[in-house]
């Protein structure tokens, strides 16, 4: 659904709002149905709304006029298994980001899993093109980043911000994004390789999720609000995990 955008800009969170109105994670009862919604329906502070909406429009046009046509061409050339392998390899290379943030959050089993995945996928998985760690050994990936680490230690999202090119974010995840540049190996190589890899990543992800953004937009009454909320909830959920 929101995958296109979420995958591209997976950074974010609010811990402030009660995540579930009346029904908590475990699906607990709600005492009074009116109360339970009272908090949740409170309007989220979005002081940059007009800027954010303008950026949303910009990204929307960018998707339809640039990203989508290019990704369609790319998709026509490379069959799906190839594109899945590209995704795997790029994700494998980002291991340090995940490991550092697993460590920072004291998630030792996750850290071990990530290191094991890297070892297995880099060797048996041929430079990360395949994911035998998951398919053979059932070791799941743990997507962690600095925005999540900040959220883990209680930092609130402050206010939502929509960035051009990057999409929905907030103050916390923007700081997180900057923090991740220190651990992302892609940023330690030649600038040309960095930008090439980032472009490939965006293109490849878009090609694997073509149509999702359209469907997401169709389902929304107000796509900007819908995306902002989806991002916020998605990040909240990631931090909780």
């Amino acid at each position: 659904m929101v995958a296109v955008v979420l995958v591209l800009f997976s950074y974010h969170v609010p811990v402030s709002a009660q995540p579930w109105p009346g029904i908590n994670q475990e699906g607990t009862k709600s005492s009074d149905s009116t109360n339970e919604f009272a908090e949740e329906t409170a309007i989220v502070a979005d002081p940059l709304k007009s800027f954010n909406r303008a950026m949303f429009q910009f990204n929307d046009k960018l998707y339809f006029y640039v990203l989508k046509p290019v990704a369609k061409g790319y998709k026509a050339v490379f069959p799906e298994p190839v594109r899945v392998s590209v995704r795997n390899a790029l994700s494998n290379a980002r291991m340090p980001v995940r490991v550092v943030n697993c460590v920072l959050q004291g998630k030792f089993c996750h850290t071990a899993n990530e290191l094991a995945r890297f070892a297995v996928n880099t060797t048996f998985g041929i430079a990360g093109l395949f994911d035998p760690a998951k398919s053979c050994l059932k070791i799941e990936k743990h997507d962690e980043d600095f925005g999540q680490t900040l959220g883990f230690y209680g930092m609130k999202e402050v206010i939502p911000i929509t960035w051009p090119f990057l999409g929905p974010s907030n103050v916390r995840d923007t700081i997180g994004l900057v923090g991740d540049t220190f651990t992302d190996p892609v940023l330690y190589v030649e600038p040309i390789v960095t930008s090439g890899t980032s472009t490939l990543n965006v293109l490849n992800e878009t090609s694997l999720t073509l149509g999702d953004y359209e469907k997401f937009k169709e389902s929304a009454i107000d796509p900007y609000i819908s995306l902002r909320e989806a991002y916020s909830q998605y990040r909240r959920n990631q931090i909780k995990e």
Partner: protein
Amino acid sequence: MYLRNKRQLLAFVIIVFLTFGWIIPVRAGVPTEQLKEKIDAIRKILDDPSLKDRKPARMEFIMNVVDSMVDWQEATRRALGIHWKKRTPQEKEEFIALFKDLLKKTYSDKMDLYTGEEIVFDSENIDGDYAVVKAKIINKKKGTDIAVDFRALKKGDKWLTYDISVEGISVLNNYRVQFAEIIVSSSYEELVKKMKRKQGIGSQASSKTSKESKQ
């Protein structure tokens, strides 16, 4: 008394384990069973080759199943949140219909994305009349799994779904915030107008997208 020595005790434990140990983990709870039944029915319709080219008919069959598993009033009430109580019975009826149509349209388009993904039920939590059933949709080709939570409410002996979360993103919650912001920044009437406009324009847009996705 009956178990005079350790060996007998051990044998007893093994027998108990073999008898119940197998049964307990295999038996899913009632909400999961009911949900599974409905989802199997939908998958059967989707897999039916004779319906592949008869999309409107296929959609109708699917919607019949969906109607029998979803509590639309509960879903709408929650989506409107505090604004539900302020509505007259007629307005409530109208809004339930609008919301239902919107979700139907949204998900009928998503049906085209189905390529034989598998659904695995992970766990179930029941608290009184509320249940959360956690499942995963597994796409083997892409090597991805998507976490989907179904939230259900017990009505009589039936568990009716009122919300679905995908990767932690609750559909209801998302609509609730959209509805609330539109009502607060303009009015309920404006929201209804927007919903209606969506239905009108939405049908053209959806036929456009389905054409595009075929390319």
